C-alpha cells in the first residue's frame, strides 16, 4: 500500500491550531460547567502536533484504511480529543454545544461507538497500549504502513497491563507503534510520582527495549522534532514520546490554582478564561 499524506498544506501555524483546540475545549467545558479542562489545556500542544503535523488522515473519511490510528486510552481526555477533531474537521464545530448532553456524539468519557475519529473506548485505564499492540500486528499482517499512536497518561503507567503491552511491543518489534505519554504528574488522588510512576520516564522504557524520548510537551518545536524522530527512527523498536506538560497551560489564573485532577472552574470563570485566551491569540 502506498503511503499518502493527506494533511492539507494550509498556512495555519501549529500554535494557532493549539490555540483553537484550547478554545474548543473551554467552550465545551462552559456547556457542562465542568470537565477535565486542566488536562485538555495541558495536552493541546501535543494534540496540535499530532493532528496537524504527524498524523495521516482524511477528515471526511475517519475510517480510511491508510489512516494513522490514534488511540485515546484516557477516556476523560475526550474533551481534548473532541477539541482537536473539531479543529481537524472530523467533527463539526456546531456540535460543541452538545458536549456531554443526552444523545450527543461527544460523551464525557470517550467511546468508539459514539464519535467519528474515536478509535477505541477508553476510560478503563491500561487498555489502550495492548489494543495498539494488536492493531500494529494487524497492520503488519496487511502490509499497511500506517502508524498506531496511543495517547496514555502517566497515571496509566501504574496499570500492570500497560507493562504487559510494553514488553509485547518489543517482542514483536512494533516499529509502527508510537506511545505518547501525557506526563502532567497529576492523578485523581495527587501527584503521580507519589504513587507508582516514579522513575517511569525515558530510562525505564529504554531498559524495556523502546526508543524513548522525553520532551517539554508544551514546546511546539521540541514536539515536532520528537514526533519526526519517532516516525523516522531506523531501528525495529517501538517508540515512546514522554511529554512533560503543565496542567491548565495557557490560562495563567487556572495554572496558578492548586493543581488537582479535576479543576474546579466557577460559572463566571469560563468566560474569563476564554477572554484570557482570546487576548493571547497567536498570529
Amino acid at each position, binding site marked *: 500500500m502506498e503511503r499518502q499524506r493527506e494533511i492539507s498544506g494550509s498556512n495555519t501555524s501549529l500554535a494557532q491550531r493549539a490555540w483553537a483546540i484550547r478554545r474548543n475545549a473551554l467552550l465545551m467545558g462552559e456547556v457542562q460547567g465542568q470537565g477535565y479542562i486542566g488536562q485538555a489545556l495541558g495536552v493541546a500542544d501535543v494534540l496540535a502536533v499530532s493532528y496537524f503535523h504527524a498524523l495521516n488522515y482524511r477528515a471526511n473519511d475517519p475510517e480510511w484504511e491508510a489512516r494513522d490510528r490514534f488511540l485515546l486510552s484516557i477516556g476523560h481526555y475526550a474533551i481534548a480529543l473532541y477539541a482537536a477533531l473539531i479543529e481537524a474537521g472530523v467533527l463539526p464545530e456546531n456540535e460543541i454545544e452538545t458536549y456531554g448532553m443526552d444523545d450527543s456524539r461527544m460523551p464525557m468519557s470517550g467511546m468508539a461507538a459514539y464519535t467519528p475519529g474515536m478509535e477505541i473506548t477508553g476510560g478503563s485505564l491500561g*487498555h489502550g497500549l495492548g*489494543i495498539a499492540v494488536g492493531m500494529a*500486528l494487524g497492520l503488519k499482517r496487511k502490509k499497511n504502513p500506517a502508524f498506531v499512536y496511543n495517547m496514555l497518561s502517566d497515571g496509566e503507567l501504574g496499570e500492570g497491563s500497560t507493562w504487559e503491552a510494553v514488553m509485547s511491543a518489543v517482542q514483536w518489534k512494533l516499529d509502527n507503534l508510537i506511545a505518547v505519554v501525557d506526563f502532567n504528574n497529576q492523578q485523581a488522588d495527587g501527584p503521580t510520582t507519589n504513587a507508582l510512576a516514579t522513575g517511569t520516564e525515558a530510562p525505564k522504557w529504554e531498559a524495556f527495549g523502546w526508543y524513548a524520548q522525553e520532551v517539554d510537551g508544551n514546546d511546539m518545536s521540541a514536539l515536532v522534532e520528537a514526533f519526526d524522530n519517532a516516525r523516522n527512527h531506523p531501528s525495529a523498536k517501538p517508540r515512546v514520546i514522554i511529554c512533560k506538560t503543565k496542567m491548565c497551560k495557557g490560562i495563567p489564573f487556572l495554572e496558578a490554582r492548586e493543581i488537582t485532577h479535576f479543576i474546579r472552574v466557577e460559572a463566571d470563570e469560563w468566560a474569563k478564561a476564554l477572554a484570557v485566551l482570546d487576548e493571547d491569540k497567536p498570529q
Partner: protein
Amino acid sequence: MTHEIPIGALSRRKPKHTARTLPVSETGERLRTSAMIASLDAEGRETVAAPFGHALCELARIREDIVGLTADLSKYTDLHVFAKAYPDRFYQMGMAEQVMISAAAGLAREGFTPFATTYAVFASRRAYDFIVMAIAEENLPVKIVCALPGLTTGYGPSHQATEDLAIMRGMPNLTIVDPCDAVEIEQATHAIADHPGPVYMRLLRGQVPNVLGEFGYRFELGKAKLIHDGNDVLFISTGFMTMRVIDAARMLKSDGVDCAVLHVPTLKPLDVETIKAEAANRGRLVITAENHTIVGGLGEAVAGALMRSGVLVPFRSIALPDEFLDAGALPTLHDQYGLSVDQVTRRVKSWMDN
C-alpha cells in the same frame, strides 16, 4: 483506647488439612491427582485427538482472517496444532492474559478473526475487564477458547474454573458455549467463527470422547437439542454433563425411570423457547446438570427463564457446591461433588422416590 490486632486472627482462615495415611483401594491401586494435561475420562468411548486444534486448521485453510493467540498455553489448549500448521498466523503472547485479550481486540479491529486461548480461570478472572471493554463493548469478533472449565483438573481452585459461566453470563454481547464432546467442539469451532460477535467457549482438549455422534447430532449456535426423549425426567444439561446424564439415563432406564436429555450447549443467548416447550411438556421432573457452581450457571438461567415464562414445574439442579473444591484425582472429585454417573443416578432415584 487502643485496638490491638488479636493474636490468633489467622485461625479464622480455612483450616489446614490434617495428616492422612494413603488410602488403599480393593484393587490395591491408588488414584493420582490428574495432571492438568489429562484428557477427560473417555469411559469406553472412542476418542478424537485435539478436535479444536484440527477444526481451527480446517477453518484457517479456507479463511485467511483466522489468527490464533495464546498466553503460554498452546499445548494445553490444542492450539499447538494450529501453530504448527500456520506459524505465521500464530501469536505467542507470553504469560500475559491481559495483553493477549487486548491484542486480540486490536487484530479484530483490523479485520481479523482472532481465536485466543488460555485456561478458563485466567480468562474469566484475570482478563475480565479487558474482555468487557476491549472486546464485548464493541461487539468485536474475538473467540476466547478456554481449557479446564469447571471441575476438569485436580489442581485445586487456582485451576478449577468453577464460576466462569457466572462471571461471563453478566457480560452483554457475549455468546457463551459449553460443548459436550469432540463432535460438538469440531462443529462449534466453525459456527463461532461465523458468528459476527464475541464468543467464550469452554474447551475439552487432548483425547476427547465422541458421544453425540451416535445420535446424529448437529450443533447450531443458540439452539438446544433434544438428544433423546423420555417420559419421567427431563434432563437439561450442558458441557460434558450431557455425556454424564446420557449414561445416567441408561442406568435409570433399567430402574424403570424414563429420562429425556435436552442438551443446551449455548448458555447465552439461552434457547428459552425450546427449554420452555420441553419443560411444559408432560409435567416431567426437570433436572438441570452442569459442570459449574450452583451459583449463576445453567440451573439458575433455566429456573429464571421458566419462572418468567410462567412454566412452574418440579425442578432440581445438579451442579458443583458453592465452595472452593479439593485437590485430588478427577474421578474421585467428580464422585465427591456429584458429577459422576453413579452420583447423578443415585440422586435422581432419591428425588423420584420422594
